[in-house]
């Protein structure tokens, strides 16, 4: 597995190349507050003010945006290849994928422009392998057949969108005080709209129940859903809220999406990234 290697490259680029330009970015972005000051400290020395919200490696706005860009590259290429594959039935599936593809392309362009505008070199697009080393054949390139390929196209789309929602959420704290917070939230919401539609296209609910990946989802995608079973929000067990009967686990977990750490998001993405 090339996760470590990928993370290293990721982190080094941010730390080394980003160093002189990061100051520019902070200047460009205006008031960054505590996060920015912390991120100027070398990793080992930085201590987060509140351990509960401490993020993993790369807890600064630049790392957050670079991670977002990496995930958007992945989604953008996936939908491009899906639309070219001839696997998608016309009608609703094609309409849905075209709309999503348009947004993912826009997100890539937006994030590149934002990073460059802030004087930061955007991460390069990785080489993707959507077969995940031969486990899938979503574009029917290896003869798995249209039907299976289509099922995998939908399953991967669901996994990517639900990952995107969780990953952006996990980076929001790193963008606190940055001018990129609002656009990141706006992208986050779009990913959630995509996720809901793809899930419903697959016959699932648009929202995540417990930590269920849902019918027909490959076991390899379970990492996308682990942790979604949480019912303690802000220290409150939300099954016990109100004065009426307690809320079901289903409703209580569906009502809140959980965040994914940067490391976990990278681990999921790297299943589809070819190490150079």
């Amino acid at each position, binding site marked *: 597995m090339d996760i470590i290697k990928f993370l290293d490259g990721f982190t080094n680029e941010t730390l080394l190349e980003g160093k002189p330009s990061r100051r520019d970015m902070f200047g460009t972005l205006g008031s960054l507050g505590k996060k920015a000051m912390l991120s100027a400290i070398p990793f080992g020395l930085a201590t987060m003010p*509140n351990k*509960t*919200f401490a993020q993993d490696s790369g807890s600064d706005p630049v790392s957050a945006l670079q991670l977002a860009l990496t995930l958007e590259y992945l989604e953008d290429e996936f939908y491009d290849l899906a639309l070219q594959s001839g696997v998608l039935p016309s*009608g*609703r599936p094609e*309409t*849905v994928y*075209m*709309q*999503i593809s*348009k*947004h*993912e*392309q*826009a*997100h890539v*362009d*937006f994030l590149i422009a934002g990073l460059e505008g802030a004087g930061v070199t955007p991460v390069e697009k990785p080489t993707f392998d959507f077969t995940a080393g031969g486990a899938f054949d979503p574009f029917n390139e290896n003869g798995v057949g249209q039907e299976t390929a289509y099922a995998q196209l939908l399953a991967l789309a669901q996994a990517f969108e639900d990952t995107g*929602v969780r990953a*952006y*959420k996990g980076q*929001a*704290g790193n963008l*606190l005080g940055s001018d990129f*917070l*609002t*656009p990141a*939230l*706006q*992208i*986050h*919401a*779009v*990913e*959630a*709209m*995509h*996720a*809901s*539609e793809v899930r*419903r296209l697959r016959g699932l*609910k*648009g*929202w995540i129940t417990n930590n269920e990946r849902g019918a027909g989802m490959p076991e390899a995608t379970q990492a996308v859903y682990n942790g979604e079973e949480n019912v303690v*929000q*802000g*220290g*409150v067990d*939300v099954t016990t*809220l*109100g004065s009426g009967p307690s*809320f079901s686990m289903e*409703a*209580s977990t*569906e*009502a*809140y*999406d*959980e*965040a994914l750490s940067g490391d976990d998001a990278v681990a999921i993405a790297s299943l589809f990234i070819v190490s150079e």
Partner: protein
Amino acid sequence: MRKSIVKVKPVEKATNRRQFLKLGGMGVVGAGLLVACSNDDNGMGMMPDPDPNPNPDIFDLGQGDLGVLNYAYALEQLEADFYTKVVNSFYANISDEEMQVLTDLYYHEVNHRDFFKTAITAAVEGNTELVLPTLEFDYGDLDFNNREQVLTTASVLEDTGVAAYNGAGRLISNPGYLLLAGKIVSVEARHASAIRTLLNPGSADFAGDDYVTTDTGLAAALDPSVVLSAVGDTGFIQTPFTANNLP
């Protein structure tokens, strides 16, 4: 039939009265405000009011994180109340799918509402004068037995909720509250997508060009004053409150 029950209108399109209230820094939601603020027409003009709560009889959402939490609580109260009415009297001939979606939304929104009440009460350490009171609602001639009116209203409420959270994120300073808002807004966005598809199956409306910018792929984000002005225009919220300390 009224097609769009709640509209997020640009400020310019609001009535003169609303516009005046807004420019005077006096955005007030709720029908009672017409009485409570009736003397504003003569006195305050366009001057920003230095008093953070010029109408002490009317609840003000507050500022900073507290203001945002109360703001979210107001919107969640509206959504929860609306879906409570929907599920207590489903429109005729509702499909199984629509019943499932609307029932789920009911549970989610009631949970969000109850969560904010608990969270805010904890945040103000029991000083309940700072917690937005339970609001009263009136849906006027909205016909809960009419599928299109119910789903269209649900759609506007969900779209507005997403835009409200997106616009309020930057007003939050506590990362814990920001994370909680993030956990909720994506669920609202999932709702918005589902309702949009119920209204127009098979289309690109689930994240339509009317809501997501085509060049940058960004969903709407609106300031509290814009959201509350639009919500106020619906007349749904009967209990007056102000948001004098939010943008």
